[in-house]
């Protein structure tokens, strides 16, 4: 479904990703781990066309999408759920969610998806008319995840969805991802604070200093003591 080969990403002069290659097959959950600031988010953003200078190849369903504008990519069924949320501050929760279904493929399902996300996050349903800029940290995170889910995408690039969520919801996220995956969708996930997440993972990658330092199945990961201690400890 997605094959990334030899990706190099830069911010100005600084190279953040170095020769990164990953693959995700249809229906898989691929988890990416790594220390803070080593390029996880940059990888997801590069795939979705949000980083200016990227060299390499991103093959999505047989087509190289690298260099395409993000809106084209989104319309092909790829969505990025941002670590720093990227909400529309002066719009209400509902307006934010509706915009989540902006892509053509999502429009038809807007109603159904709206019910779904309100079901997943009842808090959002209660606050549908609140401006998103006044939401609490966790509420805003829910909104960001929910907005991403509105897109009906086939491949979801999810960046730290549990960040700032209360413990019960952190588990909730786990089951949401499970559910989505069961619907046959592919998930590319950066997440280090949901202990159970490895159970879901079909593949695990670790990025350190911009390079892939580990790659393997969850069994291989769990048998790697170093990895377990640092990234899967919670």
């Amino acid at each position, binding site marked *: 479904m997605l094959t990334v080969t030899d990706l190099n990403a830069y911010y100005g002069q600084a190279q953040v990703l170095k020769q990164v290659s990953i693959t995700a097959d249809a229906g898989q959950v691929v988890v990416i781990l790594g*220390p803070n*600031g080593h390029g996880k988010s940059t990888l997801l953003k590069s795939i979705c066309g949000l980083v200016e200078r990227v060299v390499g190849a991103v093959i999505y369903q047989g087509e190289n999408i690298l260099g395409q504008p993000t809106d084209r990519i989104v319309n092909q069924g790829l969505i990025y759920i941002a670590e720093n949320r990227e909400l529309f501050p002066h719009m209400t929760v509902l307006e934010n969610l509706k915009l989540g279904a902006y892509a053509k493929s999502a429009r038809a399902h807007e109603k159904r998806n709206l019910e779904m996300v309100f079901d997943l996050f009842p808090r959002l349903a209660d606050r549908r008319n609140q401006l998103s800029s006044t939401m*609490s*940290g966790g509420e805003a995170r829910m909104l960001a995840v929910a907005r991403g889910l509105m897109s009906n995408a086939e491949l979801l690039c999810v960046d730290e969805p549990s960040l700032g969520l209360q413990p019960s919801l952190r588990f909730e996220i786990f089951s949401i991802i499970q559910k989505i995956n069961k619907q046959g969708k592919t998930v590319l996930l950066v997440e280090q604070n949901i202990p159970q997440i490895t159970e879901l993972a079909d593949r695990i990658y670790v990025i350190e200093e911009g390079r892939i330092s580990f790659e393997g199945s969850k069994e291989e990961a769990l048998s790697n003591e170093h990895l377990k201690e*640092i*990234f899967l*400890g*919670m």
Partner: protein
Amino acid sequence: MLKLNHVTKKFGELVAVNDLSFAVEAGQVFGIAGPNGAGKSTVYNLITGFYPFEGEIAFEGRNIAGRQPHEISKLGIARTFQIPQTFPSLTVEQSVGVGNRFGARGRFDPAYVESILAFMELTPVRHEPTGQLSLLDKKRLMMGAALATRPKILMLDEPMAGSNSNEIRSLMESIRRINAEMGITIIIIEHFMKVLTELTSTLLIIETGTKVCMGDPETVVNDPEVIECYLGESYG
């Protein structure tokens, strides 16, 4: 040391903090937890003077309600923000300097700033502009700048969010040392129970702005009401 008396904050219809009272003793590490939108960050904003409110907040016996944020900072209350704040026009060193220059009573003390930089492991990035630091470094920077004001009490808002276990361990160690070695009282908002149970001596749980329970962390996390509203059945 810090005492909230029947504090209430409304945003229009919404009661974000509802008749809340609690006290923090000097030298404590005091934890606050509760569901998303419970009003935790709002409590911080009230204490540090960002919003007007009803009720009374006393610091070292003095009512500080109605004071401006910068005055409160001068009294010795420092804080960090849930969403990282930085000064993109300033370097890391300058940003920490800001805390010392404006927040601390007494003269600007470069040696002290230096020691904070070292303590928060910011020395390698000291000359970088702060806008593009990684999340962890931004959090360290906020803590460092807050510490540079030589606070009596340091209030942290989800300092661990977004970090992996390794990083969390090192942050916890730093917080412990701030409390023990520098003698600074700490209030911490977190959603990681392990952090709270290991660090805090008292844990307060609030929900929709109201106190649910308060006490020693082990007891609190086993409180059925807390499990019900906050931790979830699967917690454990």
